[in-house]
């Protein structure tokens, strides 16, 4: 039984179909990338999977349960598209990561030892154990992104859904994160990852699903780097601080 089964999903924004009849399945322990150009509908599809945007057609099943009746959200770890971990009032990294344990706690009850251990372990996994008590707005952009990934890991998910987790993260941190994710995959966690660049994270993929104009155009082996990217000596560097320079992002948003 797949942990995620999307059939004929259609999502529209104000009458315009952004995702059109997409199928997407993720088996237990499988690592799948959802790829495509900006505007291809990959972020929208993943938001539909997470229950953040409604379906106009088709169906989504999570762990064999139709999404409408699905309640076991603690089995899913979610890393939203990059927003930064900081908010209006200062919060420490540990406080943000402990949000990942709330689904395991009864409303109004104090954290148990298992909750505190999961928070400490996830922070250590992403290499921020020393920064647990630091306010997140004093952390760098890449460190904030690692806090958000630690928050998803703290849930002890069986399915990890990540929406462009490595945008704006330097190459070394990307490699470190790829190792963290790979360890979770080895432990049996399924991964669904939205990305539009090949990098350390995509090396461990079992499968890639490519969207174009809201439709699935490829479902199978992950694409291999071509051109200079295929050169083993190629140093994957980015001229901009935010790590990518495709034209859709020219105005700083999507």
């Amino acid at each position, binding site marked *: 039984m797949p942990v995620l089964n999307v059939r004929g999903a259609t999502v529209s924004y104000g009458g315009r179909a952004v995702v059109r009849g997409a199928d997407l399945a993720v088996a237990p322990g499988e690592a799948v990338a959802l790829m495509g150009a900006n505007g291809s509908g990959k972020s929208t599809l993943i938001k539909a999977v997470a229950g953040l945007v409604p379906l106009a057609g088709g169906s989504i099943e999570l762990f064999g349960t139709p999404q409408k009746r699905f309640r076991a959200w603690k089995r899913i770890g979610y890393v939203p598209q990059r927003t930064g971990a900081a908010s209006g009032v200062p919060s420490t990294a540990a406080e943000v990561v402990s949000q*990942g344990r709330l*689904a395991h706690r009864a409303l109004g009850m104090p*954290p148990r030892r298992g909750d505190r251990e999961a928070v400490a372990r996830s922070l250590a996994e992403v290499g921020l154990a020393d920064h647990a008590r630091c306010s997140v707005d004093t952390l760098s952009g890449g460190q904030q992104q690692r806090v958000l990934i630690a928050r998803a890991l703290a849930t002890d998910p069986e399915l990890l859904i990540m929406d462009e987790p490595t945008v704006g993260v330097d190459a070394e941190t990307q490699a470190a994160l790829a190792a963290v994710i790979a360890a979770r995959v080895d432990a049996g966690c399924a991964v669904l990852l939205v990305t539009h660049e090949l990098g350390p994270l995509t090396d461990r993929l079992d499968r890639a699903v490519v969207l174009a104009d809201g439709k699935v155009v490829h479902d199978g082996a992950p694409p291999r780097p071509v051109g200079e990217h295929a050169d083993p000596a190629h140093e994957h560097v980015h001229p901009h601080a935010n790590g990518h320079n495709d034209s859709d992002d020219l105005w700083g948003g999507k």
Partner: protein
Amino acid sequence: MIFEYFQYEFMQRALLSALVVGLCAPTVGVFLVQKRLALIGDGLGHVALTGVAVGFLTGAAPVWTTLAVTVAAAVVMELLRAKSKTSGDVALAMLFYGGLAGGVYLTGIASDKGIANLQQYLFGSLLTAGWSEVWTIVVGGAVVAALMLVLRPWLTAICADEQYARVSGLPVAALNLLLLVTTAVTVSVSMRAVGILLVSALLVIPVVTVQQFTRSFKATMFASMGAGLLISGAGVLTSAAQDVPPGATIVLIGVAAFVATAFIAALTRRVRRTRRGHLPPEGEPLEVELPAKA
């Protein structure tokens, strides 16, 4: 001597109510600031004006009519925000206009029934509160503070990142509603102390004052309760000594405290700039290719 004032029972009542409001209002305000809804208290304050006018019109106790009207407005606003395309600031604007107009309109109808009293609700009238009103404030404040302290992690989650909270399966709609209804209760209960027009000051000022120095949400919450207590206590003492309205005095002291701490925080940051708290990770690579040296 300033303590002579407190041999009068009305001064004891005034001090007690102001301290309770100062202690409890920031527990709600810290979430509103995090949600970037700092003005919601003021919006509901305008609606409270309609509630007071309903009280004049019906002869019921204004505290209860205000409570009913502000809670109803909070529910409508949350439904508008969640179910329709109305954005938070548009819904807030509607609260300001509608609340003020409703209050003026209804007091116009009830013009023979105590319009002279409206001013005491606009700017607060701590000194005329009776013991029953003081107990309403104490009980209301205790309930609000207890609820906010117990639910802190959940409310933080929905205020900081509502989408993530939704994917975690938290009851986001119910918690949002709870926060707004609690705000409405706080506004209705504390209008005695600082008045309808100034009520959002005690929700917001203690929080934004202490958060310039705090690192964690928990510390911000507790420190803002302490700051609220100090600000409202100092306000009542000063107003007693100078015989001026306590509400305005409390707010002015709060604003002064905020401006002073903002300057001090800017100064300390400047001093600390040489020793950064968070060095970049060891060996973080340069994100550009350096040209080869000639």
